């Protein structure tokens, strides 16, 4: 097992976790690229239909599609950054475990950066490929057009999403590297768990609900992130 041996083994042996992370990243990139390409095709369609539509309606529709396109891009970017952040933040205990066993800081950072880079790259490459495939299918089935791929959009999505996932994924890695192993191993750091002594459960409905609500409130940072993430997904679906 060389320096790349541990991260690759680790990813391959956590089959479910790795495949779910890559699948989620892929879906995020795929849906963003496909919707961008689709809205671009729709925008071009409107522009070429100026003779049929009034100029005012054409402008309104074009601006609306441009707005939707920007929104899709922003939502996709935020989703990808959160995913990368959560993917690495949930490994804080593993950082602590390896550090406590005596692994030097530079190697700990190297191992987890390799894992981050591998999953982000796999997610982005697969996402771009699937995005093009979906665009090709929709172009032939829905528009019955001659298919001309737009590589500029793909490049924009690929570079932005890859950079964002690496930047946001690196944050928990650097934080954990600076932490003492005992802090990294402490449950206080899983998903930003806060140990408050003053908290009171909101409900007295039952033990299950009390446990669930306490867990939700004590894992403040994770709960907030998950709520924002779900809200964004619903906005995207509604749009």
């Amino acid at each position, binding site marked *: *097992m*060389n*320096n790349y*041996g*541990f991260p690759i*083994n*680790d990813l391959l*042996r*956590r089959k479910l976790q790795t495949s779910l992370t890559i699948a989620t990243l892929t879906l995020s990139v795929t849906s963003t690229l496909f919707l961008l390409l689709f809205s671009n095709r729709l925008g071009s369609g409107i522009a070429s239909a100026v003779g049929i539509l009034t100029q005012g309606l054409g402008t309104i529709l074009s601006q609306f599609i441009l707005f939707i396109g920007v929104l899709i891009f922003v939502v996709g970017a935020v989703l990808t950054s959160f995913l990368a952040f959560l993917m690495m933040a949930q490994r804080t205990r*593993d950082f602590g*475990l*390896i*550090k*406590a*066993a*005596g*692994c*030097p*800081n*530079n*190697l*700990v950072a190297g191992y987890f950066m390799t894992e981050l880079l591998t999953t982000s790259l796999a997610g982005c490459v697969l996402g771009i490929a699937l995005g093009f495939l979906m665009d090709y299918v929709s172009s032939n089935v829905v528009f019955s057009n001659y298919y001309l791929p737009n590589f500029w959009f793909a490049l924009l999505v690929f570079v932005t999403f890859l950079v964002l996932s690496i930047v946001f994924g690196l944050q928990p890695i650097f934080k954990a*590297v*600076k*932490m*003492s*192993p*005992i802090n990294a*191993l402490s449950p206080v750091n899983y998903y930003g768990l806060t*140990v*408050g*002594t*003053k908290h009171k459960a909101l409900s007295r409905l039952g033990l299950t609900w009390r446990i669930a609500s306490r867990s939700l409130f004590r894992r403040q940072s994770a709960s907030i992130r998950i709520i924002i993430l779900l809200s964004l997904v619903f906005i995207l679906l509604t749009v």
Partner: protein
Amino acid sequence: MLKNEDIMVQTEALEKTYELGDQKIEVLKHLDLSIPKAKFIALRGASGSGKTTLLNIIGGIDRPTSGKIFVAGQDLTLKDEDFLSDFRCNNVGFVFQAYNLVSTLTVAENVAFPMEWTRKPEEKIEIRVNELLETVGLQHRMNHFAAQLSGGEQQRVAFARALANDPQLILADEPTGNLDTKNAQKIIQVLQILKEHGKTVIVSTHDLQIIELADQVLCLEDGRLASENE
């Protein structure tokens, strides 16, 4: 009176306080102690007396709130995490009560892992892994994952991993705490071997057999050194 070069661990007015919300919990209070090299030390005391915290600070995986800590001639008190991580890698072998093995690595890989951090050649790593697994009696389990082992076996793997880089100081936090008598006996045999090899071993324990093995017994009470028996 011990000379400086004979001392492995020295603490001066060592204090550790944890903050939990508004509460402050003083775990170690003004602790002064000296532990000589090549001695087997048993650390005893009731739960919450500060044994684990003291071991964590000696091993460089936690920092004191105030006071000084010297280990193997190095002042660890104000050192940053980069220094401490290198120090742990080269000088300390830590055995945790909860084993803390890497779940995605096999037994052999867990033992080989620390040697890869110090960039030892692969042939030497292979020989050393076999040697260590033979010492702890787990050669037949080398390709199993941690989750496929019993508690006692995991603890023995943790010992083998702690010894991989042949550290001068070995710290074990209640190594028999979670084990039955039969498995505890195997761990005691490993400790006996370490003692015979002249390693400095500090074990926090309630186990009378381990205490009998010790050259010196330090008793902690409420974060203070209550007694010191040769």
